[in-house]
């Protein structure tokens, strides 16, 4: 029995402090303001304080911490991307993830399961090869496996997929992991708060004070705040904030849905993704199957669920695992994914001086939480992006230099 838990049984007073300081008043000025109390915003606050000594920071969250896509995502963490820039970036994130529970002293259930991207067509096999080769070249563990290896890792799978779409092979990525999403927001929030960052929930940014091409502050439903540096880390709300800033971007919001089943005893130890069947599944530590599918096909700023989603998803899951037909789906939900045309994020400075963007995280941004926090903190502190995120600059569209991550991100998260 871990010591920390023993304390609970024998202390008179509850032995744990509050996670976050909850200051009653927002001050009228901060050195930096971060819009969005999701994983990204809170991580940026943490690294601003830890790495750059900037602690006079306010994080403003319109709802509750982690209530955006952070708390809705299916938590797949991997770095087997397609472009060298993408692989290097996500790999840097995975490296932070591996010790994050210890660093934040919060068990994030970072669970290394191994990640299989199944290929049902020759052309999918080619893409797997491409990714494997780029990954290997970048020092990331990925390999193309055949059906037998898949069967061994997941004996229950029907490799023929009910005869409709036989599995020809897979891209296997050993570092593939899952983690507990809420904990990530809480852990970063707590650590940032301990270093002096102030976090305000139920506080919505309603306008930006921009004069002379530079940011001077933000307006909120709880009053105005003066600041010279603002980070927007609002994922599905990005177009609303960029509109306030008068900045045009390619970001379009599409719902992304997911669902879970009732809990069952563990049997699925890997993360499985099928691009052709447009589904992915892993089993949570609680025993639920966490499942998702492709992005909703049209723009919508809503977290409504659809029946077609669970119907299609169930049909495809049963093609792989016919014995699950009696297993029940308990709950479905959706998040608002901020999609870019090249499936790569948009990070860094903007045409408005002092206003930084961390967006375009679409269906894949959870895994990037640590590294995006770290690199955005650096960008804010130095007013200059680190090399690692150069490929993700907003100006790449104007320059016709897109990043081409579509092949790896389309369904796999």
């Amino acid at each position, binding site marked *: 029995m*871990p010591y*920390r*838990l023993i304390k*609970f*049984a024998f202390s008179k007073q509850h032995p*744990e*402090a*509050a*996670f976050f300081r909850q200051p009653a008043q927002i001050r009228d000025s901060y050195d930096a303001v971060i819009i969005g109390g999701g994983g990204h915003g809170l991580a940026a606050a943490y690294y601003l304080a830890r790495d750059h000594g900037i602690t006079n920071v306010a994080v403003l969250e319109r*709802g*509750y*911490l*982690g*209530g955006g896509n952070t708390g809705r995502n299916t938590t797949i963490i991997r770095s087997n991307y397609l472009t*060298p820039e993408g692989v290097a970036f996500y790999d840097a994130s995975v490296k932070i993830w591996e010790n994050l*529970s*210890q660093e934040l002293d*919060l*068990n994030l*259930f*970072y669970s290394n399961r191994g990640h299989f991207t199944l290929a049902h*067509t020759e*052309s999918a096999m080619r893409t797997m*090869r*491409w990714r494997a*080769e780029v990954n290997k*070249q970048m020092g990331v563990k990925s390999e193309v496996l055949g059906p037998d290896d898949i069967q061994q890792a997941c004996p229950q799978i029907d490799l023929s997929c*009910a005869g*409709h*779409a036989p599995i020809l092979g897979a891209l296997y990525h050993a570092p593939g992991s899952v983690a507990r999403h*809420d*904990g990530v927001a809480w852990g970063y929030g707590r650590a940032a708060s301990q270093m002096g960052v102030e976090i305000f929930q139920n506080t919505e940014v309603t306008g930006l004070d921009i004069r002379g091409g530079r940011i001077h502050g933000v307006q909120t439903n709880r009053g105005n705040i003066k600041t010279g540096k603002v980070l927007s880390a609002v994922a599905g709300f990005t177009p609303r904030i960029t509109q306030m800033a008068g900045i045009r971007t390619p970001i379009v919001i599409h719902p992304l849905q997911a669902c879970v089943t*009732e809990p069952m*005893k*563990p*049997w699925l130890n890997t993360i499985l993704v099928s691009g052709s069947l447009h589904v992915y599944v892993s089993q949570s*530590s*609680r*025993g639920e199957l966490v499942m998702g599918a492709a992005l909703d096909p049209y723009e919508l700023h809503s977290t409504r*669920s*659809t*029946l077609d989603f*669970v*119907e299609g*998803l*169930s*049909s495809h899951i*049963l093609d792989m695992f016919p*014995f*699950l*037909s*009696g*297993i*029940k*789906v308990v*709950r*479905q939900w959706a998040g608002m994914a901020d999609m870019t045309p090249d499936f790569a994020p948009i990070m860094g400075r903007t045409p408005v001086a002092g206003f930084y963007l961390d967006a375009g995280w679409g269906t894949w941004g959870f895994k990037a939480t640590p590294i995006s926090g770290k690199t955005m903190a650096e960008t804010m502190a130095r007013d200059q992006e680190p090399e690692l995120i150069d490929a993700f600059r907003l100006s790449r569209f104007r320059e*016709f*230099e897109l990043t081409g991550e579509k*092949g790896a991100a389309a369904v796999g998260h």
Partner: protein
Amino acid sequence: MSYRLPQQSGEWIDRNLTFSFSFEGKTYQACNGDTVSSALWASGVRVLGRSFKYHRPRGVLSLANHDINVMLENGIDINLRADVLPVTAGMKLDAVNTAGGVVKDYLSVLGWLAPFLPAGFYYKAFHRPRLLFPFWENIIRRMAGLGVMNPKAPRLVSPKTNLHCDVLVVGGGPAGMNAALVAAKQGARVILVDENARLGGTLGYDSSSGLGPGQQLEQLCEEIEAHADIEVHLSSYAAGYYADHLLPLIGPEGMAKVRTRQLIVASGAYEQPAVFRNNDLPGIMLGSAAQRLIQRYAVKPFERGVVLAGNEQAWRVALDLLAAGVELAAVIDLRMDPPPAGLIPPAVLVYSGYCIYEAVGSSGLEGVWACPWDGQGNADQSRAIYIPCDGIAMSVGWAPASALLYQAGAKMKYDEDCQQFVPDSLPPGVHAAGRVNGIYGLADSLADGERAALGALGLSSVINLLPASQASHPWPLVEHPKAKNFVDFDEDLQLKDFATAAQEGFNNIELMKRFTTVGMGPSQGKHSNMNAIRVLARLRDEPIQRVGSTTARPFFHPVPMGHLAGRSFHPVRHTPLHGWHQQHEASFTYVGAWQRPAWYGPDKATAIVNEVRAVRHAAGLIDVGTLGKFELRGLEAGEFLERFYTGHFLQQKIGTTRYALLLDESGVITDDGVVARLAEDFYYVTASTSNAAAVYREMTRCLQLWGLEVTIVNLTGSYAAFNIAGPLSRQLMEGLTTADLKQISNGGAIETQVAGQQARVMNVRFVSDLAYEVHAPAQSILSIWQALVEAGQSCGLKPFGIDAQRLLRLEMGHFIVGHDTDGLTHPFEAGLDWALAKDKTFYIGQRSLKIKANKPLTKKLVGFTLPHPPANLPDECTLVLEQGRIAGRVTSIAFSPTLGQVIGLAYVAPEAGIAGKRFVIRHQDGSDVAAIVSKLPFSGAAA
């Protein structure tokens, strides 16, 4: 001993049809109509399941599909809910998630560890040292989870149906039944759905001893049955609300998707447990559960019991228990109010202003400690009274079954008088009636049903009824220093866990839910959310209205994936030549939904070589009927093509073909094909198989955008096509047509007769310099194909599949869109500068190319050969390295039987892309393979 009562009027069981079943290895008897729980309870079994976290014994709680601690497995299915699962003969059932059986579950020791495991404990431990986490995780994963998956369980395939109606009424209680009747009488087509096996709702079990609604129920049922326009779905639940009034009804056989014009939600309310120490012991149940046991299943809930009262319902429960022969030890009334007149049970001790401080027992209830209390959770233990008993019926309040209303977008408000959330505003076409609306009592419920029905039909004249007063007690929770006073039975959450969570900063409803996991178990908070909200409101010292509730997402009850999936549907497309291919040993491959021959014959490798040889030395035939095929007619058809594709088409001569390259707005290659001009105002255009639908779609969009005088006809399905290629192809064709094919040998196209059938013949040199593509209506293609096969028999003509085609075109140096290009490739990279008209004012992507032309190229598609090919060739998509950096990749590679060497296409650094230069390919096995850039087409290929 048997707890079965004598016949109850309106009971659901059939005593003449009995059978045996087994539970945890023991055999029990059941009547037809029994659920597993009712049959076991009737047999005196009290421990029906174990709780999730502490493995505490649990019995009947709701008997209404919320007894999530009583889940079963039958060898095939898991997590079956005993409280609603009908018993069938010979069933073999076990409780899920026990260690050593439900009676002696040794994991119940976990209960002792509870003080070490506060809410969110797993966030606080097990991560240090890092290397031990997998060990802890393994234990935690094994402890979690309910049933054990059976990987041999068969796939259920249940059909789906689609239904349409004017009014869908969810909930067959008095409000719902009356709403259905009133709507139907006004001429509406009505569907009425209820999750129970019979209509009636509260009327069916809350008949409160002699008040006579039994008759009313019969009458309503008869009227509904007699009405032709009411379709009743029983044992079915509306699992969710989706846009435009679509609701799936989940029944035992499958899913019916109902699209309705108007929705009436009369889904009632869930009775809520009181929270006190050991409130989960078997024998402690909701008042309505006791009533269901008695009225539906004729089972005596317990021998000697108490009623815990917090509302009027409690008194009716007391009367029902007395009528069932239960010895009523006491009514413990949380309030000071006297019982309502007419409901006073004879000769029963009533403790007004008392609470239950603690229940006592180990695997079942043995007694309770009752204390006077302040109505706010604090008991005065100095005046505790012990009452021995084996049962408690709790009637302290309700929570509305408002999930569907929330999902439909209703706003709810907390009515302090009723102590319940009730709808504040409803979206168009959605109505609420009965308890979900805060309306209690038979007469009021019927009236509310009528009001909702008239509202749905736009005939409403009836005013809204006021919610009932005090239907729920505002604070049915009692503190206890030793805790085990459960708020959430799914997750074994105790009252103090909420204070812990709030203290740690998780003091808004959503954060609290996530930190404590309240409401996240299989019951989705049906019996726990309301109390959790009360607790939080108190912790925050705010009204419940401000605290609000969490979002209710689908599903209302969990839905089996088999029902959601239905029959899965996998459409496949075949060309008219498919039968012929099958007869000739074709191996097929999918290209999108199309099935195409990959090669012919038993052995792939030899087949491909032979097919290639045939094309190079005699002739080959390939089915290309899957190509996109479009006719464009009109005076501005040429103008349209000029704008759509990169080339010139206005000056194109009649009777000729041209290459057609399609870009997107950003200048990326999206497709290519052939344009044949067949008349002044008539073009015939092909597109690649996988892009056919998208190209046609984009053509029609552009047509609307540009407003040109063109009609586009999509012949992809109605026309078929094949390609005949190789040195003998002209000769073979000429034997079947009178047309002069020499005329079209350099990019020509004609309409003529081939083998007696009208056809379009084009010179398309994708796989060979001498090749013709023959397009004809689907019904005539087979006879042309067969005529050619016959004519070619003696000279070595062979059909070939797409594997040989890939190789042949590679020898020709042609790229394939999507295979040799990716989602960002532009024409300069692919070496297609020649295909871009320089002097046009507009084509799609042109302006973007102008920008790209000013930027340095980063890579270039070139042909290459391998001077020293390894035995195992590099795969397609292996990388091209330039001083250890990734410069590009191999997109195509194969051994060419024609050239006797390995050839391929690859992206290389532009400066490396000069014929004769060497570059390095990183083989998938890690070795480096030297390659030499080659001119295209590979010399000697074009036979």
